[in-house]
């Protein structure tokens, strides 16, 4: 079943076309990676889907409903949640309270919310730090917190924006494990922007490549790694020659 359909989406900033007529679909239970060089329009695409920007053209259909141009909180209400590239913890609140903000979306009862948040905090491995203010967390901790908060809103689809940026390889590996566990345990569908290639290659079922705002390829990781257009986009035109 198709969970999310992005249909001819275009987003402009003044004269700049940040997202240029992009269409693809995400199946229920799938992990779709989204890659592309700096400035390719990945985050803009995210923002246009998640309600931060209003796209000029095209449609976004989520779970059978058109969500184009809906406000971020309404999109979240429907079960589509996003994380931020630059993590945005509620710095003064402790870890548990951060997650409770997410959990309150489905629930008004403080006790139930608390125990649900507690479970999720333990699940992402922040159990020992539950009562630490979020500002005391390390980068890796903040990324986990970002995941936990998003998870607490009981989403069907999670958009992850560079959860591994700024992490050491070990930390990245741990986050990949957490994401895989999340996917299994909560039966989630994921759309993942990532620059750490190793991670995204192993995590994704399919990978979509954006370049200059356009979708230049969408395929399995193996096929993408061999794709001429993708290599060109990343390394420059002449890499094949240099390779020989």
């Amino acid at each position, binding site marked *: 079943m198709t969970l999310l359909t992005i249909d001819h989406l275009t987003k402009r900033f003044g004269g700049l076309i940040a997202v240029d007529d992009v269409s693809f679909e995400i199946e229920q239970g799938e992990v779709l990676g989204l890659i592309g060089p700096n400035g390719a329009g990945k985050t803009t695409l995210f923002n246009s889907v998640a309600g931060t920007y209003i796209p000029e053209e095209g449609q976004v259909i989520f779970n059978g409903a058109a969500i184009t141009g809906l406000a971020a*909180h309404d999109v979240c209400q429907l079960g589509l949640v996003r994380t931020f590239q630059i993590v945005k913890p509620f710095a003064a609140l402790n870890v548990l*309270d951060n997650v409770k903000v997410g959990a309150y979306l489905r629930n008004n009862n*403080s006790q139930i919310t608390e125990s649900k948040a507690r479970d999720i905090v333990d699940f992402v491995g922040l159990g020992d730090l539950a009562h630490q203010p979020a500002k005391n967390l390390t980068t890796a901790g903040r990324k986990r917190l970002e995941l936990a908060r998003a998870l607490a809103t009981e989403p069907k689809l999670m958009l992850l924006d560079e959860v591994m940026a700024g992490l050491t390889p070990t930390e990245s590996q741990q986050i990949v494990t957490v994401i895989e566990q999340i996917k299994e345990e909560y039966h989630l569908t994921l759309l993942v922007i990532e620059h750490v290639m190793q991670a995204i290659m192993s995590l994704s079922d399919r990978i979509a490549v954006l370049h200059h705002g356009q979708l230049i390829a969408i395929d399995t990781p193996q096929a993408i790694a061999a794709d001429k257009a993708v290599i060109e986009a990343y390394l420059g035109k002449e890499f094949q020659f240099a390779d020989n």
Partner: protein
Amino acid sequence: MTISRDYQILAGLTLVFAILPLFANQFQLTLLITLLYWAYLGTAWNIMGGYAGQFSFGHSAFFGIGAYTSTVLFLNYGISPWLGMFVGAGFAALFGAAMGFLTFRFGVKGHFFALATFAFAEMSRLIAQDSDFINSTIGLTMPIIGGDSWSQMIFEDTKLYYYIVILGMLIVATMISIWIYRNKLGYYLLAIREDEDAAAALGVDTLRYKIIAVAISAAITAIGGSFFAQRFGFIDPALVFGVSISIAVLLRPIFGGSGAIWGPLVGAIFLTPMEEFTKIFVRNPPEFLSFMKGRAGFDVLLFGVIIIIVVIYMPDGLVGSIPQWLERLRRRLRGQSQSATQEAAR
């Protein structure tokens, strides 16, 4: 901290403040009334400025609406202030919601929002000064009834009754504040304060919750305005709509710790005696400072200094900073003992 713990503290404080008047003379009782009154207003401001992080620099608008509504209803229609103050609260909440909707809807944020609240307050003052049906600049005076009347909330003989009223108001306001802080609304407001985009991404309707915060804060403030009118017996636009009210209202929570449940009360406990002290000081300064005798302005000057010091050195207020200082002190002590043992090891 669980819910019951906050209410335990409140119960303990209530007990203390219930006993205190037994040992207080008339002067001290006045001081206590002033203290509780500012703690009450600070608590109201704190819901909007502290929890939701929407820095209001125009609370005098709500205060004045409250004061004028109950007073006009009382003087012109004989409606008891006990009822009138809730009507005033309703008006203030509506005004606050409208102001909030206009400003938030158009994305006015941060210091621009503060300026907008200031402009709204100044405008309401100017309108009040220009409105004949509320006696324009001359103001309104409560009748002298020659005694105490609970139904009219005028106590000419027994100050203690005002104390009881304001203590009750503070308890209710604090309970509301605690309830908000410990429930969904509070979490949402804090989330909005910390990061609006992140809150929206987690499903928080930020516009709606910000307006709710303004409305609640406005309503509580307005009731404080009604109390002021009853106790002081006289109001005019400069007095109740003036900038000085807006400043005074935010001073206690900022000093005590905005965004903390007990910040406004802690701020009031520290600042009220200090204010009183400076007044006495100016009235009767020591020999070498005799030139200050009778000079107005010293108390407010100190407030200015306090604000500057608070912003630079303790932006989290007393409630937030004291634990940090203790932590730093502990760390320093530990560091010293560590280096001492290292020395010894060598």
